[in-house]
Structures are given as C-alpha cells and as structure tokens.
C-alpha cells in the first residue's frame, strides 16, 4: 500500500511539471484584427479586462487590492488587476516554482527577456503585432536598444522599461576635497593617480589624521567597474567582439591594464586595504564617515550620497559629484561601463486571455498621463497642480507611500520633468542631471545583451576572481594573469568562445 501511495504521488508530481500543454492559446495575434485599431478609445461597453500579474515587491511595502492608486489605474486602463507581489529576496526562485507547478500568470515581471526554456516551450507570447495595433506609445517612447535587448529572432518577447541611463555605474568623487586641495577633475588615469595621492597625503577631511581612503570598492571585485572602464573593460558577464571572436571581458587583453593599475593603487596605499572584504554595509559606512575620496556607484544615487554625507559629516561641507570616467593611458576606445538598456521587463504568457488589454494597460502607463501617475501618484492626493500656472508640486512626505508605484508599476525611463518635480530641489536636480548626462554619454556595447545566456561559463566567475585578486593585492605578478587567460582557454574556455562566436556569426553579422 505504501508503494501504491508513493507511485501515486510520484505521478502527481510528474504531471504538474508539464500540464500546460493543454492550455489553449486563445490569444493568438490573428485575433487582434477583429478589435478596433485605435488605442485611445476604449471600447465603451467592454467589461474591465482581468489581468493576473506577478511582480517582485522590490522590498517595498505593497498596496492591497483596494488602494486608491490601484483603483485609479484600473479605471484608466479599464482593467481588473490581480497583482501578486512576491518577496524580492526569493522572487526568481518563486517564479520558477510557480512555473514548475504550472501556475502561470498572464504577465510577469523580470529583468531581462524570458528564459529560453519557456520560449522553446511556447509559453511566451510574441508581441510584434499586438504592439503595432495597441501599443503605439510604447513603440514610440521606448528606444530601439531596449527593444533589441528583448528581441529574439525578430520576435519581441517582452515590454522593456528603458534604463534610466545607458551605463549603470559611474565614478563619484568628493568635490569638496578637490576644491580644498585646489585640484582639477582628473581626466586621465595618471591625473587620477595624482588626485588619489593628494587625497592620501594632504588630509582633505581636515581631521589631522591620515585616515583617508582615496579609493574604495567592494568584495568580489564589484563596484570598481570604472577603473577597468578606463580601458573599456567590464569584468562581469560582459562580452566583446574582438579579433573575430566573442570573448568575455575577463580575457580581453585590456583587462591587464586595469589589473596593473589597481595593483599600483595597492602598492601606494591608494586603495582601501580591505576592499576584498568590504561588504555593502562596511563600504557605505566608510564613505558616510567621510573617509573615502573616490568610489563607483549607480548614477541616480548622487542625490542620496549628497544627502547622506551632509547628515553624517556636516562639518566637512561635503559635495559629491559624478565625473566622466578618466581615459586610461594608451587607450582610445570607449570609456565607462557596459551599456544595459533595460531595467525591468514585463513578459506576457500564452495564458493571457486579454493580451490586447495588457498592451493597452502598458501603453497608457507610458503616455504622458500615465507617466505623471506612476511617478507622482494621484492629483490632489500626492501632488497638486497650481491653478494659476499649472505648476506641479509634489508632497515629498508621501513619497514613501507610493514608492511601489515608481519601482514596480512604472514602465517609462528617465523623465526629467517628473524627476525635477519629485526632487523639489534644484540643487539636487543639477547633480542628478549632470550624473545622467555623464552616464548617457559614456559606456560601451555589451554583446551579451540579446544573446542567449551562457549555459556553462567554465568556472570563469570563480577563477577570474581568484586570479585577479592575487594580482591586485600583489600576491602574484601580472604575468600570472596572462597565464590564467591562456589556461582558461585551454581548459574549456575555447569551446565557450567558439559557441558564442558561432551564434554571433549566425545571428548578428
């Protein structure tokens, strides 16, 4: 009897893995021809379309179904939304589990295009025709690079939210320290060296102790990308078309320059001696304690850094600005960090019974009205329009209560007008605008975007970190890294390169 029970349960478990074969795909693009083409005249008598959505809660407090903004959104888009907010920390796992047990929503949020497995299994809806019919705003306002990132073999497989900036990591510097020491903003790697040396020696934080940390980064060789970026190299999942091959940045010859530079920083004590063990909290604490001169971070955080430092070290009159990535000696290619054109994405599944309604929902969100809503909330509640000149003011105290709107619902990229209103601080806005301009004017292509993910990276993550770390802190000569590059290729890396190059040649040339 136990055996029978076991078999029964095993069969049940097996079935739930592939029960989706039977789901009829009523949402084939062919249907769209029967519904009205105009996207801005909702079919008046139509019932609100039910949409089931799964999203990450981005670690924010989430609204319940009766929240006025949800109601407003449903009204404006003529939908009946059933949004399931899943905990951010386990979001990817949760999604996988739900899919594995056959629980598919109509649309789900991700940070890239859909997984190859799902596409192969026919679970994902291609959106090309739907967008032409129902999403003109989307097609107009979302840049081509973003669409390309979610397009496979000509099929658009997701609605991408364009990233706020082209490149996602920039160099921050304590401007007040530069001013105090009468230094110019460094534009080359050598000038940066001189600035760092001055930071180390001349006590810019004015406390009489040589406790400054000229440059700091984080463990696992993260958040130091702009140093490697001085020679155009990205160290994580970045691929280049070089010498007729598609290779990872980690085995590109220019990476040696970056490693050598950091090694120099280490020898001269210009880099945080604990950078290999800095976790996020410690690294932030050091910066906020007014000890660090230069660091890398996301461009949109320049306002936060300024606010944080003013709170923690007010007597230093701190000023944090973003500077363009300096140019590495002997290099004349693109500088900065890799371009990633998308932040989050929304993917429609074959389950969706009203894909037209879903496209229209997003189309409204990216319209001017929708953009105001997703950034500022509802008029009269979180923002006010002056009757005299139409000037909009935003109630910053309520910002936290609609943080989810911005992080989860919003589909548009950078809207300077909205950002200005939200910040309500012209000084901060200047910093932000400047940071965004820099982030958008530097950076380089990452071939990996739009390519299928690497199935077996031949242990690059592990081996790179180890080989690079050794060189950076002086435990091994630079030649060892060159040896690593050759060894990695010989021990299976060549196969990976060939795989990627073959795909590139077949699909991109």
């Amino acid at each position: 009897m136990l055996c029978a029970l076991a078999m029964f349960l095993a069969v049940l478990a097996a079935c739930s893995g592939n029960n989706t074969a039977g789901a009829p795909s009523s949402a084939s693009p062919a249907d769209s021809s029967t519904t009205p083409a105009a996207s801005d005249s909702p079919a008046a008598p139509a019932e609100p379309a039910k949409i089931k959505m799964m999203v990450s809660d981005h670690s924010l407090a989430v609204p319940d179904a009766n929240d006025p903004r949800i109601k407003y959104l449903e009204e404006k888009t003529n939908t009946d939304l059933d949004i399931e907010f899943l905990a951010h920390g386990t979001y990817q796992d949760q999604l996988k589990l739900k899919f594995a047990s056959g629980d598919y929503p109509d649309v789900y949020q991700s940070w890239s295009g859909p997984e190859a497995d799902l596409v192969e299994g026919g679970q994902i809806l291609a959106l090309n025709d739907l967008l032409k019919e129902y999403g003109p705003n989307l097609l107009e306002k979302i840049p081509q690079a973003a669409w390309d990132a979610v397009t496979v073999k000509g099929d658009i497989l997701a609605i991408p939210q364009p990233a706020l900036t082209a490149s996602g990591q920039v160099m921050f510097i304590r401007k007040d320290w530069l001013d105090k020491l009468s230094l110019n903003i460094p534009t080359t790697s050598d000038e940066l060296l001189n600035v760092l040396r001055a930071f180390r020696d001349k006590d810019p934080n004015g406390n009489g102790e040589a406790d400054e940390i000229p440059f700091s980064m984080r463990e696992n060789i993260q958040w130091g990308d702009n140093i490697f970026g001085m020679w155009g190299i990205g160290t994580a999942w970045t691929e280049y078309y070089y010498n007729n091959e598609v290779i990872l940045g980690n085995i590109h010859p220019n990476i040696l320059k970056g490693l050598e530079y950091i090694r120099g920083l280490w020898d001269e004590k210009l880099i945080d001696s604990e950078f290999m063990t800095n976790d996020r909290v410690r690294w932030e604490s050091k910066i906020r304690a007014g000890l660090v001169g230069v660091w890398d971070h996301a461009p949109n955080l320049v306002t936060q850094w300024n606010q944080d430092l003013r709170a923690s070290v007010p007597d230093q009159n701190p000023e944090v600005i973003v500077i363009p990535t300096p140019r590495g000696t002997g290099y004349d290619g693109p500088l900065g960090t890799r371009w990633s054109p998308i932040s989050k994405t929304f993917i429609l599944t074959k389950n969706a019974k009203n894909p037209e309604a879903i496209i229209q929902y997003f189309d409204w969100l990216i319209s001017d009205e929708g953009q105001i809503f997703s950034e500022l909330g509802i008029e009269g509640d979180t923002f006010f329009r002056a009757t005299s000149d139409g000037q909009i003011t935003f109630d910053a105290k309520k910002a936290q209560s609609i943080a989810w709107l911005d992080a989860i619902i919003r589909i548009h990229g950078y809207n300077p007008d909205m950002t200005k209103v939200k910040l309500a601080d012209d000084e901060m806005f200047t910093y932000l605008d400047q940071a965004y301009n820099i982030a958008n004017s530097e950076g380089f292509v990452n071939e990996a975007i739009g390519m299928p993910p690497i199935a077996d990276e031949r242990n690059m993550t592990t081996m790179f970190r180890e080989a690079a770390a050794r060189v950076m802190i002086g435990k091994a000569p630079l030649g060892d890294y060159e040896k690593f590059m050759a060894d990695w290729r010989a021990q299976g890396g060549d196969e990976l390169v060939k795989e990627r190059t073959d795909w590139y040649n077949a699909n991109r040339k």
Partner: protein
Amino acid sequence: MNIRRSIGEKIFDTVNIAVLALACITVCIPLIHVIASSLSSTNALIHAKVALWPVEFNLDNYKSVMQNRAFWRAFGISVFVVVFGTLLNMLLTVFTAYPLSKSYLRGKNGVLMYIVFTMIFYPPMIPVYLVVKEVGLINTVWAMIVPVALSQFNLLICLTFFRSLPEELFEAARVDGMGEFRMVTWIAVPLSKAIMVTLGLFYAVFHWNSYATSLLYITKSSLKPLQLYLYNLIAKSDMNEMLANVIESTTKLNPQGLQMATIMVATIPVIIIYPFIQKHFIKGALIGSIKE
C-alpha cells in the same frame, strides 16, 4: 557522607570555575556590543563609535520593527506554529523512536537505514515544493508544520535515550497487562524527562527561528511568520549579485541595527523560557522505579 575534598580536587574546581568564567567573558563582551549597537543611532554606527555602551541612544530600530501591525500578526503566526508544530513533532518523535529502541524488533535496522538515508540525501528544492503543493499546503499555516513534522536527528537522539531505559521495567508492566501505547506515555516519557524537555526545546526553537520553512511556501503576507517578516525587512536582496546593479540604493534604515534587533527578538523568548526548562534537568529520574 564524605565531604572532605583532596587538594587535587580543590585545584580542579578552582581552575574549572576560572575557565568557565573566561568562556563567559568571551561570549559576553561581543554580545554586549551587539546589544549596544542595536540601541545606537545610525550615525554613531557609521563612525564606529559604539563599543560597549549605546551611543546616541535611540530605539528607532526597535520602533520601526515593532510598530507595524504586520509584526504582531507575524508574531501570532509564529506562536501558533511553535505550539502546534512542537506538539506534532514530539508525538511523532516519541512514537517512532520507541519501537526502534527495542532491540528485538525485527526489521529495525532496515527502518533505521530508511531514516538515516533521508538525513544525508536531501531532495532538491523544486520537487519538494511540488509535493507540498500537491498535498495542498501552499499558503496555509500547515506548510510550516507538516513538511517538517519530524526531525530525523531528534528522532535518533530520542531513540538513543530510550535504548538506555532498562527493559525490565517494560517487562514488568507487560506482565501487569499494560499495552505498548500506554507504556510509552506512562513509562518511557516520564523517565526521559530531561531528553523530552530538550527535544521540545530544540523543536520549539527551530520553529520560532525558521524562515526556510516559509520562504517559498508562504506568499500571503497575513501568514508570514516572524522570522520571515524580519528577513524580508532586512531585504537580503544583496544575495543576488547579478541583480545588484538594478536595485542598488544606499541603505536607509541601518541594516546592522535592524539585524541586531532581529536577533533580540529571536533570543529573548528563549532566554525567558530556558530557566523553566533547566528545572527539569534533575538528576535521578530513574531512582525508585527499578525498585518497584
């Protein structure tokens, strides 16, 4: 009785006390620092000013955690899980360990291997989830109780202790006509008080502190237990390095303080209850029973 102790014994006792006191100090000092940190302001922590006393005393970390109604709901859920979970655990443990402690039970070794095998080979996440789903436990409070109804480790401990109970006791009871079920309840359990209490403590602490049992099975926020609630609060999103670029933002509420507040919440109930448990660690539970 002989109360005179030799010099050797006196030295031993003194050294013993000294060693244990030293061990206590190595534990106390870091703990005091942890407590002080959780009572200090963010600014003080950033500037690394906190040693063994709170600097810029404030209860922000605790306030932000405990002011939420959600916190208390999660608290209630945890209490429920602890009570019913431990109950189920102890029942299963005792009644599975007892037969296996009888040396004459045929097939015992096979069953033991069946049990130990599952301790070493543990199934991957997705199949476990599928089973829990098929049994209908997802998003129910029982998802935190039934899939962990029995700890093989605790079972083996219980088993080992039952083995040491003299068989003569049970023989005598059998002659008196007592059934096996009653023998478990009226003989085995009372004689193993220290172990029963210890295992109960282990299970209760496990339930109180676990978030793994609910991490993937509970998505309804009204059903989240305390540790899961706190875990989400600390937003362990840093663990996914590939997404770090996307959701990076400087931490608003000091995570160190939050973490420490979390630890406080986890530990205080145990500290309160433990003295009551220690009372049961009385020597000589067996005295008198053999003479009967």
